[in-house]
């Protein structure tokens, strides 16, 4: 089964940049949605928390034991989905890409490192969009009543983007410096710590007073607290939101600088 002469005649060249980035983003999205553990983290856990938190009798969420629990819970679960995708899932996937030589192999392809990162951001964006749509739909079906200020939707979207921006370099920082197995443990561990102790699901004022300033400056606290304030009844508190966004961008900048210096591609 010899090939006809000229089959392999060289014709090198890179594909258009947008085509490469979109192809990479869509492939990473497919791979993520095909992976059972990732799917559990991205969709099953947030939705189970939302449904159980809303329906289970006798639970006390920030002093609210009845129907209004969703007002606290839904923004928290949204923050959780952002964290799971742009931090935990990204860190684990990238660490194994490093381990399996995927990053190394793609490093010898026409796709540049910037293009690879852009593709990753597309995948993260698509998965987060799916998560947010599902969480909001389920919350509304359960009787969630978000605030009525029309500005709350774009502001919430801004917070979700700023949260992603803060968590992505943190995920890459972990993925680019530690062995894959350690990343698997650490990414899940940090996620659990931030869920339980980082004001993700519970408001900052539910924590002991001495810890409150610290927790408010965690990326999880800033993101979830901002979402809770924005999506609750009443007009958007612009000053508070700006404060949370500044905290998130500070994390993005700091983690981005450290990651750019420490990330090892192979």
């Amino acid at each position, binding site marked *: 089964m010899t090939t006809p002469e000229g089959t*392999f*005649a060289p014709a*090198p060249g890179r594909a258009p940049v947008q085509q490469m980035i979109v192809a990479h983003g869509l492939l990473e999205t497919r791979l993520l949605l095909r992976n059972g553990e990732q799917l559990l983290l991205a969709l099953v856990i947030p939705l189970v928390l939302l449904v159980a938190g809303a329906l289970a009798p006798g639970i006390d969420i920030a002093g609210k034991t009845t129907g209004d629990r969703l007002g606290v819970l839904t923004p928290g679960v949204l923050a959780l989905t952002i964290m799971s995708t742009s931090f935990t899932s990204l860190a684990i996937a990238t660490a194994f890409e490093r381990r399996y*030589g995927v990053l*190394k192999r793609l490093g010898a392809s*026409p796709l540049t490192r910037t293009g690879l990162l852009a593709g990753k951001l597309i995948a993260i964006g698509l998965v987060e969009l799916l998560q947010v749509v599902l969480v909001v739909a389920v919350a509304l079906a359960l009787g969630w009543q978000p605030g009525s200020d029309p500005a709350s939707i774009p502001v919430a979207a801004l917070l979700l983007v700023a949260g992603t921006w803060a968590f992505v370099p943190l995920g890459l920082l972990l993925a680019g410096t530690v062995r894959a197995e350690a990343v698997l443990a650490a990414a899940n561990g940090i996620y659990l710590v931030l869920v339980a102790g980082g004001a993700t699901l519970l408001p900052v004022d539910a924590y002991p007073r001495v810890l409150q300033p610290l927790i408010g400056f965690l990326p999880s606290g800033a993101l979830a607290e901002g979402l809770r304030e924005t999506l609750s009844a009443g007009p958007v508190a612009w000053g508070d939101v700006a404060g949370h966004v500044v905290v998130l961008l500070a994390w993005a900048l700091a983690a981005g600088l450290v990651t750019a210096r420490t990330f090892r591609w192979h």
Partner: protein
Amino acid sequence: MGELVVEVDDLVVRYGRGRTAVTAVDGLSLVVERASITAILGPNGAGKTTTIETCEGYRHPNGGRVSVLGLDPVRDRKALMPRIGVMLQGGGAWSGVRTKEMLRHIARLHAHPLDVDVLLDRLDLTRSARTPYRRLSGGERQKLGLAMAIVGRPELVFLDEPTAGLDPQARRSAWALLEELRRDGVSIVLTTHYMEEAERLADQVYVVDHGTVIASGSPDELTSRGASNTLRFRGPTGLDLRSLIAALPEGCDVREPTPGNYVVLGPIDPHLLATVTAWCATNGVLAQSLAVERHTLEDVFLDLTGRELVPPAEQPRNRGRRERR
């Protein structure tokens, strides 16, 4: 000499720093001609992979110069990558990605890729097109790695041990594929520790040990180098060896180790063979079982270093040449 697509000049690559630094490549030089197959042959740890990865832009040289298609592999990375194909020694794919999905992805990164289905078919991967990478056999992974290296229609491919882990049939098929690539004008650099691979495929072989080239040339030049080849024949006992030696070029020797068995030692080339048969004709000798014994690259390596190219534990069975030693 044709156009050079790779020039490595006095390359030095070290790992680590200070007292714990290890010198992986130590003053290595080589060149690769366009549309040729160049083999870098040597034992594990000789510096083959480090050399090839420096050409691929993965490592900064600590000394010396590397030029690939006239470009600096690190500085001109963006311009170089679309023009070369790379096969790493292992991995390079997500564990959950399917064979065809992975190959199609690499194809989509290039402007004029090969037809993915044709390539899968040529490499006998069609049946595992939908199999996730983690469930592929070692041989299937190697073949996918090779496909990924050539799908972008590169001018130059770097293949790090392309046939390691392939069964003999798949290996021959891969060799045929590499010959088709060369036929179509692709330049190929491969590392190997299989001397048959270098002998069968390569136009030029660089024998590497301890990070430097210890011998180079075409397989024929390497295996006929020095006075190490032999010509054997049988004939009547007690021939006049001095007369035969006198007929041969300077530096040749003839022995009769056992009665009627003759061994000619020296640079055995067609001319020398003709001289021996002419001498036989003149002296009315009917030479029987006339045989030229060519030395293999493995013998060359053993002669040069006193060590085996492949440790005995790694030897594939039935290689057919072990019996001679």
